[in-house]
C-alpha cells in the first residue's frame, strides 16, 4: 500500500503543479463617483489660468538620430523624457529635461533585446520596459538605457506595462470585429512571463478603441476597458474600481455596438447619439484628469481629489503660433505634459504675427473651430488662452521651424 501511494502522490503533485490561471479579483469598496452635469452642452469651460499656473517649454533637439515621426507616448521620469514613436521612427528616444537628445533605447532586429517595433513603454521600479507585440515579449532596461533582460509571454496585446511589483500586464482590446479565440482583454503575468490572471471578460460585442490603455504615474497603474465609464487601479492580483464617471442617462447602454457591423458605423452613430463616453484618463498627485466625448466634442475634466471639485476645459487656442497647450498627453507629478508638432507652423506664421492679443486669439479660435467643423465635422470648442508667455518663451516659440521635432509643454496644475 505504501508503494501504491508513491506513484499516486507523484500523479497528484503533477496535476496540481499545472499552472493555475484565475480571474483577477475585482474590488468595489473604495469607488469614487464623479457626476457629469446632465446638460453637457451648458457646461462652462474654464479659463487656462483656472487650471494651470505655469508652463515650461521643452524644445526637443532635432538631428538625424533624434528625429521623431510622431509621438505615441511620453513618459517623464526624473529629469528625462522618453518618447515612444511606435510606427514612423519605430524607436524609444530619450531626452534630458532641457530637450537635449541623449540616446535611442534598444534597436530594431530579431535577436535578444531587439524589437521589430516598440509598441508600448512603461517605467516601474526604476526600470524602463518596452512591450514588443510582434515578438510577444517585454524588454527591460535600466534607467541608463542598458538592456537587462527580456521576458517572453505567450500572448499578443495592444498595450503592455510592468506593474509596481515586477509583474506584467497586457491589454488585448479585442473588438467584436476581430476573429479570435481570446475571451479576456486583460492578462497578468508573473516576472517570469507565466500567466497568472485574466480580467475583463469579453461578454459584449464592443469594438476595439484606443491604442494605449495603461496610464501610469507614481507607481500606480490605471485602466478603463472598452467603452466603460469605470477607471480601475490595477495591481498584480486586484482590479479596484477607483472612479466611476457617471454620465447618468447619457451612459451608453450595454451591448450597443452589437447593432453595427463596423467600428466606423458605430462611431458615427455614437457621435450623433445622446450618449457620452470616457476616452483618456491620467492621475496626478492631486487630480484625476479625464477626457470624454459627447456629440463628437471632447471635454477635458480636472477633478481635484482634495476639494472633490470638478473643472471643465478644452484645448485653448494660444496666442503664440497656434499652440494647443490644453491637450493632455501625459502627466508627471502634478504636471500635465502636452506636445505640439510644428510641421504646419509655416502656414500659421504666414498669416499671423506672434504674439497676438486676446481679441485676435478669439477670432483665430472661432475660425479654427469653423475649420474643424467644416473639414472634419468635429466641434472641438477651441477657446483663446489667457496665459501670457514671457518674451523669452515667445522668442523660443518663434524660433521653431516646421522640420523641428515636436516641442513639449510642461504645465503645472493649480490647486483648487
Amino acid at each position: 500500500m505504501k508503494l501504491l501511494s508513491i506513484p499516486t502522490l507523484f500523479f497528484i503533485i503533477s496535476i496540481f503543479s499545472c499552472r493555475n490561471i484565475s480571474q483577477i479579483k475585482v474590488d468595489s469598496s473604495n469607488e469614487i463617483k464623479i457626476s457629469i452635469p446632465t446638460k453637457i452642452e451648458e457646461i462652462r469651460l474654464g479659463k487656462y489660468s483656472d487650471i494651470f499656473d505655469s508652463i515650461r517649454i521643452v524644445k526637443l533637439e532635432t538631428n538625424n538620430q533624434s528625429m521623431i515621426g510622431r509621438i505615441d507616448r511620453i513618459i517623464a521620469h526624473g529629469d528625462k523624457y522618453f518618447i515612444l514613436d511606435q510606427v514612423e521612427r519605430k524607436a524609444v528616444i530619450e531626452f534630458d529635461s532641457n530637450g537635449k537628445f541623449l540616446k535611442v533605447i534598444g534597436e530594431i532586429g530579431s535577436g535578444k533585446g531587439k524589437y521589430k517595433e516598440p509598441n508600448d513603454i512603461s517605467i516601474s521600479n526604476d526600470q524602463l520596459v518596452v512591450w514588443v507585440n510582434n515578438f510577444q515579449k517585454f524588454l527591460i532596461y535600466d534607467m541608463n538605457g542598458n538592456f537587462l533582460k527580456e521576458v517572453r509571454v505567450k500572448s499578443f496585446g495592444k498595450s503592455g506595462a510592468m506593474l509596481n511589483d515586477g509583474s506584467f500586464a497586457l491589454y488585448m482590446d479585442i473588438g467584436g470585429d476581430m476573429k479570435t479565440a481570446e475571451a479576456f482583454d486583460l492578462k497578468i503575468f508573473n516576472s517570469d512571463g507565466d500567466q497568472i490572471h485574466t480580467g475583463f471578460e469579453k461578454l459584449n460585442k464592443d469594438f476595439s478603441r484606443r491604442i494605449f490603455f495603461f496610464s501610469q504615474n507614481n507607481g500606480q497603474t490605471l485602466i478603463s476597458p472598452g467603452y466603460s465609464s469605470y477607471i480601475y487601479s490595477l495591481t498584480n492580483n486586484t482590479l479596484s474600481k477607483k472612479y466611476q464617471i457617471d454620465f447618468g442617462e447619457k451612459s451608453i447602454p450595454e451591448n450597443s455596438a452589437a447593432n453595427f457591423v463596423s467600428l466606423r458605423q458605430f462611431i458615427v452613430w455614437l457621435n450623433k447619439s445622446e450618449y457620452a463616453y470616457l476616452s483618456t484618463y491620467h492621475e496626478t498627485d492631486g487630480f484625476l484628469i479625464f477626457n470624454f466625448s459627447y456629440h463628437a466634442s471632447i471635454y477635458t475634466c480636472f477633478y481635484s481629489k482634495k476639494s472633490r471639485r470638478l473643472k471643465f476645459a478644452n484645448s485653448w487656442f494660444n496666442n503664440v503660433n497656434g499652440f494647443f497647450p490644453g491637450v493632455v498627453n501625459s502627466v508627471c507629478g502634478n504636471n500635465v505634459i502636452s506636445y505640439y508638432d510644428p510641421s504646419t507652423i509655416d502656414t500659421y506664421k504666414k498669416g499671423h504675427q506672434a504674439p497676438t492679443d486676446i481679441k485676435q486669439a478669439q477670432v483665430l479660435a472661432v475660425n479654427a473651430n469653423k475649420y474643424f467643423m467644416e473639414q472634419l465635422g468635429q466641434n472641438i470648442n477651441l477657446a483663446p488662452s489667457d496665459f501670457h508667455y514671457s518674451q523669452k518663451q515667445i522668442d523660443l516659440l518663434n524660433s521653431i521651424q516646421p522640420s523641428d521635432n515636436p516641442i513639449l509643454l510642461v504645465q503645472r496644475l493649480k490647486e483648487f
Partner: protein
Amino acid sequence: MNNFITYCGIALLVGINIILLVMLKKAPSKSSQDNDVTFHLKASEYNHKQTVIHSLLNNDLQLSDSLEVTDINDTKVSLRSLVRNGSKIIVRNREEGCSLCIEHELQLIKKYADSIGIGNVIVITTHGNVRKMKVFVQTNKIPFSIYYCKKLNLPFEEISMKPFVFMLDPQLSTNNFFLPDVAATDISEAYYSTIFQTIFKHNKSSGSKANRNITIE
C-alpha cells in the same frame, strides 16, 4: 514489486491520457481549419476583385500638367520633370495609411531595384514635412527618390488609404495600376518581374541614378 510496476504503469498511462486530452482540446478542429481556408480564399477573391476594379478605374488617366511635388529638401518640382526621361514606377503612400503594407511593399521593390534601376522607382507620399519624410526614408531605408504630394487626384485616393503602385509615362498618363496585398507577396513579385521584363529590360540604362535626390546620412 510487480504491483508497484503495474501501478506506476497505470499512473503513467492515466497521465499521458490527460495530457493528450488537453492537447486535443487545444488543437484547432477540422471545421476551424476549413473556416481558415475559406476565409483566406474569400480574402484573396476579394483582393483580386478590388485589383481588377481599381485597375479599370485608375488606368489610362491623365494627371494634371500643373501638379507639383516637393522633394526631401523642401524644393518644389513639377511632376512632369520626374518622368521626362521615360516611364517610372510610382509607389503612392499615405502617412495615415497602413504602415505595415508600405514597409512590406518597399522591401519587395528593393529586391528588384537593381534590375529595374533605382532611378526608375519614385515614392510619392503625404508626409507633409521634411522631418517626417526623413524619418520615413530612414526607418524604411528607402534608396529611391521620394516626394511629397497631398493629392495626385487618382480615384483610388478618394476611397482608400492603402498604398498602391502604377506606371507614369512622360505624358503623365497612368497605367499598370496595381494594388499590393501583404498576404500575396508572390503577386507583387510577379508584377515587378513583369514590369522589368516588358518595360525596363531593354532600356535599363535609362534609369539613371542621377535622378536620386536623397541626402540622408
